[in-house]
């Protein structure tokens, strides 16, 4: 069936099978491979994107469910060459090692800061509790989000 999805501000019209998952629609149909595809069971959180402004695990959302809605992926965080504060925070605080979990961490962190500009480390840990870093770099991930909170006044969004 035909769907029209606004992804990072740009409308895409595609003919898709109902069983196509949103993560594969983004990666395969649109070529937006920044969103990673991990556990496939909504546990690991590498596939988190914003659906109408709310973070969801895109391995457990059908592409047809996004018809007529807005999706924001990690590619939509930066504005041109200006990285989002959460991206700069991950650079400043060494918030990634292998980088596989990073897109999902960034999208959830952005949403957290949009709703709570000054979260405690406990708040950050709770917000990210549905996401796994198999390098176990959680300390630096939490620090990175705190850095973004403290240095994020010029948020690209």
């Amino acid at each position, binding site marked *: 069936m035909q769907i029209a999805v606004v992804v990072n501000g740009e409308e895409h019209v595609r003919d898709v099978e109902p069983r196509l998952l949103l993560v594969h629609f983004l990666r395969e149909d649109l070529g937006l491979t920044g969103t990673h595809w991990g556990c496939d*069971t*909504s546990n690991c959180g590498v596939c988190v994107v914003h659906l109408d402004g709310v973070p969801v695990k895109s391995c457990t959302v059908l592409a*047809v469910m996004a018809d007529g809605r807005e999706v924001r992926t990690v590619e939509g965080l930066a504005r041109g060459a200006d990285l989002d504060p959460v991206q700069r925070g991950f650079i400043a605080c060494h918030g990634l090692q292998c980088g596989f979990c990073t897109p999902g961490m960034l999208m959830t962190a952005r949403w957290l800061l949009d709703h709570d500009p000054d979260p405690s480390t406990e708040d950050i840990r709770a917000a990210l509790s*549905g996401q796994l870093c198999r390098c176990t770099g959680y300390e630096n991930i939490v620090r990175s989000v705190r850095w973004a909170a403290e240095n994020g006044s010029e948020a690209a969004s």
Partner: protein
Amino acid sequence: MQVPASFQYRKATSVAHALSLLAEYGPEARVVAGGHSLLPMMKLRLAHPEALVDINDLAELAEIRVEGGALVIGALVRHAELLSSAVAGRHFPILHDAERVIADPIVRNRGTVGGSLCQADPSEDLSAVFAALRAELVVRGLDGERVVAARDFFVGPYETVLADGELLVAIRVPIRPSVSAYVKVDRRAGDWAVGAAAAVLELAGGVVAEVGIGLTALGARKFVAAEAEDHLRAGPPSGERFAEAARIAAAHCAPTADQRGPVDYKRHLAGELVARALRGAVGRAA
């Protein structure tokens, strides 16, 4: 790559439309909302519906309101919405206790209250909570509406009294002065319960006028510890009586051994969690 088998997909535009779609596609159709139980089961071919009826657009099912002396929670209310609902937390803090430990924040953004109940997973948290609260489930079909007590909704694991073509539309929790709490033991953040207990107490004149005790993942019939409730009703809310109720609840539940623990451990947990939930609820009394 895990991908579901092919199916037909229809987006419902109203409850009436959803019901007509369910009638059109028959028993092989399934309702999908958050999809966080159904889609993984479809990927694993544990479920293979021929058609999905998507109810995500039905705003009429997505409200939390107080109406007719009851808290009414629409079936499509997301877990995150129930967790952030001030009116729900004010009347029934147990709902926030439970929502705080259901899956993780991202899953809670998508998963729905009604979907969790209809999935009827024995380890799902809200089944015991609404059973303890003696909630009423409002079910609509083409022939009209019927109300099912939460305690009568569950037939067994993954099985409810919903007939083909019926849709759970709302959960009604009668508002009476009560104290309540839900306590859960899990192995890590966001995991299914090893065991959990729900307690709802209506206290009047120094006695327990009514009590609901729910058990999650512990093999309790209808998700409740009815014998423990009987023990507490009409007596004082004392620690001694709570301890005896906990012992009764542990004796009457029927947990099964799995990777989360052996039977004797889970039975011990049942007693301990019932005692903690009862104490936690009473501790909230003003």
